[in-house]
């Protein structure tokens, strides 16, 4: 029984991981987080159907199975933030691709420049309607951006984080 449950967990995770990978390859440029959510939501009914058909689960069991599947999708969602967003991991990848795995500081900052980093993040924040960027480089915070900024400020105060980036 525990082995069956472990197999269900593995299968659910494998279906979502493979599904997200294939969908990301087919629909290039789409936000990976949206892809993971879509795959999780699309495959959930099939997983529940499988649970009723092959595993003979009752209503409670089917709800648990759906919750399990969606929670595993949530874990995959969080996992994606590591390679997709992490500056630290990007630095390691740049060095991995460099000759003899070595770079001088100047080469490192040329490959992964501060300007490119900030401009890309600002573009993403603008696309998500947190702010707008004028033609002259003027940045205006939108209500969503103000709320996000306040959330970060309040969180830093709550956890007594003095400085971070």
């Amino acid at each position, binding site marked *: 029984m525990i082995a069956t449950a472990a197999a269900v967990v593995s299968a659910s995770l494998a279906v979502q991981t493979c599904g997200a990978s294939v969908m990301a390859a087919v629909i290039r440029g789409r936000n990976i987080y949206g892809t993971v959510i879509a795959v999780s939501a699309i495959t959930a009914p099939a997983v529940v159907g499988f649970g009723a058909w092959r595993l003979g689960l009752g209503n409670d069991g089917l709800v648990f199975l759906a919750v399990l599947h969606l929670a*595993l999708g949530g874990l995959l969602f969080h996992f994606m933030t590591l390679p997709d967003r992490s500056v630290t991991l990007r630095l390691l990848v740049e060095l*991995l691709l460099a000759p003899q795995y070595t770079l001088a500081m100047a080469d*490192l900052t040329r490959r992964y420049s501060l300007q490119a980093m900030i401009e890309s993040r600002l573009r*993403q924040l603008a696309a998500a309607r947190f702010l707008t960027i004028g033609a002259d480089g003027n940045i205006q915070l939108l209500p969503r951006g103000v709320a996000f900024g306040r959330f970060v400020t309040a969180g830093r105060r709550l956890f007594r984080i003095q400085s971070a980036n």
Partner: protein
Amino acid sequence: MIRLLLPLAAFAAFFALSLATVRLLRPAQPRRFFLAFGAILVAASVLIYRRLWPLDRLEDAIGLAACVAVQLLLCLTFWNSFYSLLWGFSGGLMHDLLSDPSLRYVDRLVRSYEGTGPTDRIMARRLPNLVAGRYLDENGGRFTLTRKGRLVGAATLAVLRAFSLGMGGGIR
């Protein structure tokens, strides 16, 4: 269905313990505490679940897996919020833009991150940590990946390729 309250209660304990630890002990590496609290609370949840609902049927085993997955998801959401939002780059940008209106120009914002030393604020925080964690060796201003760094870099690159994420690092 009441079983799903177990991971919610465990997460409430995880949050309270983490908050108290960060505020009172101010550890240099809070993630070690988060990891320990998370592991202990998952073990506690499994013990409590098995005592209240013995694993007699497949439904019970699936219910246990669901409870553990939800608990891990909640704890990871907290962890990610702490490190990616409160400590992270985008959160930091929004915090700076909100708290200092004079930075609301792209060039001024970039300048504020350049800092006064040889490295910008972004690198100045990360590179010493990578060296201290033995992911990199530094020699005369040149950085070389260690075996550990190559392993993590290769795993990251594999995931980037598997999910068509480009080069990652938040740049699109």
